């Protein structure tokens, strides 16, 4: 017989608690930002923002898609709700600080997540996915026909020349906001994984009927997942109008966001918070490199090609490859 203590030693390496992990994340984020300031290249912030945005988007998708197994294709709906809530707020109160807009965008997208979850979570598997796809179409149609936020013509957002609080180029401020969002989202994702909630999500993903029979309130847990997932996607979208300065439905609802938000967790690995990070850095970085060196159209090909390769060769993603076989 193997004793309990031996088992624990044989298990994973000693892991950090929630608060120390958060502190480590903050230190890493501060280090990244300080390094960026030292480099002082505007393009580095510009490209880094995209990667960070995909870390948030991929992690948000993974909370529903990876942890509970409900594949959401309606990413752009949530992302654009965040983006367009900022456009709306910019039109009525241009002086509102960006972090506040992020919170509003997140709350709105989270509420839409709650509604969508309530209506569609009775559907399983591919039927749920199709319903989410429909949501993206519905939201895009609404936004396209809403003149106040620019309608089909699009809306211009004039961003301040100098970043508030930190000084320097405004894109540095956007980068910092997204960096902070990464810290929040990653700390949340990891906390879920290590809590009872994470076990409940895993039970739902593996067998919903057996989960119910084991006492798991599946509907409630799935709603928590859709709210968190949708809310974080909305937060990821909220700074977008300031980043692009001109937002129209074609760019806000671009298929790229949906493809990347699914491809990155799949490539990095859906079972751990680290997966979407690895996927976003790798695929996002590669796309940016190809966009600059080869062609701006080739970057979608990268996500598609890698996704196919990984689904076939390494279904558990990069993190799965390194994880010791149990």
């Amino acid at each position, binding site marked *: 017989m193997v004793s309990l203590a031996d088992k624990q030693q044989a298990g994973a390496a000693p892991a950090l608690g929630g608060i120390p992990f958060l502190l480590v994340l903050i230190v890493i984020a501060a280090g990244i930002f300080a390094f960026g300031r030292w480099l002082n290249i505007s393009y580095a912030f510009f490209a880094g923002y995209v990667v960070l945005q995909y870390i948030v988007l991929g992690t948000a998708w993974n909370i529903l898609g990876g942890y509970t197994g409900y594949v959401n294709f309606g990413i752009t709906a949530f992302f654009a709700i965040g983006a367009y809530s900022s456009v709306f707020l910019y039109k009525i109160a241009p002086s509102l600080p960006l972090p506040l807009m992020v919170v509003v965008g997140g709350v709105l997208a989270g509420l839409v997540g709650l509604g969508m979850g309530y209506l569609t979570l009775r559907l399983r598997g591919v039927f749920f996915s199709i319903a989410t796809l429909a949501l993206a179409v519905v939201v895009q149609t609404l936004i396209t026909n809403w003149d106040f936020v620019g309608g089909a013509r699009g809306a211009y957002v004039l961003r301040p020349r100098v970043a508030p609080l930190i000084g320097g180029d405004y894109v540095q401020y956007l980068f910092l906001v997204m960096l902070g969002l990464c810290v929040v989202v990653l700390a949340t994702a990891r906390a879920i994984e290590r809590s*009872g909630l994470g076990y409940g999500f895993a039970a739902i993903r593996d067998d919903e009927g057996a989960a119910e*029979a084991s006492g798991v309130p599946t509907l409630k847990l799935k709603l928590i997942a859709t709210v968190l997932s949708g809310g974080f996607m909305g937060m990821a979208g909220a700074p977008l109008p300031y980043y692009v300065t001109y937002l129209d439905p074609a760019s806000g609802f671009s298929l790229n966001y949906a493809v990347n938000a699914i491809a990155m967790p799949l490539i990095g690995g859906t079972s751990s918070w680290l997966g979407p990070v690895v996927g976003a850095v790798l695929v996002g970085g590669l796309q940016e490199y190809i966009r600059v060196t080869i062609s701006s159209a080739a970057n979608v090909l990268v996500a598609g090609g890698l996704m196919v390769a990984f689904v076939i060769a390494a279904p558990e993603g990069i993190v799965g490859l390194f994880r010791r076989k149990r």
Partner: protein
Amino acid sequence: MTTLLEIAALGKRFGGFTALQDIDLEVMEGERLGLIGPNGSGKSTLVNCICGTLRHDMGSVRFAGRPLDGLTAHERTRSGLARSFQLPRPFASLTLAENLRIPILYAVNARGDGALSGPDIERRCLDLLAEVGLAEKAQRLPRDLTQIEMRKLELARAMAAQPRLLFADEVMAGLSHAEVDEIIALLFRLNRQGVTVIMIEHIMRAVMELSQRLVVLVAGRKIADGAPKEVVRDAEVVRAYLGE
């Protein structure tokens, strides 16, 4: 002894097919009940209706004096019902120990009285696995198990919810003679701890040994209910199994 489970005029239809009709059944606290019947007679449907996996169309189910009608499956589990599935349905991405952690977190701890924390949960998972002889594989995934071990895992997971009433749905199918004895001993042990056991089983040796009372379902109707030795001699039961 008090009545733990009370089923009155229960009926279930799937479209035009009547799966269960007018089922009346009372189970006493601490009883060991055998539920038998030919394939397709509605045994598992009855369990599904009681546990909330399916909604019944007619009649009522009361458990521990409380009506269960309208409660979801997880609420019923929390109120003290637990079941194993006839075809094992383990949580495939979780280790065996983690499989048992789910009902402890979501059924036992949700009841509020005597919630377990961290190391206690781990210990309890390992103890339960040891009871069904799976302690060595606690950190393995269900895909490493044989069909027989999966049935044991099913039973352990149901036990982990600390039920007052346990449905063992064909947990012994495919097991060797010695293993059947092991499971029988395990069910006896649980019963001595106060758990009421309803066993659905085709292995008559086990049914006869364990059951204090035997209920027979045929084509969705209850045709016999009584002492095992008398029930198996009942003319109608013999006809249902062997034909005219």
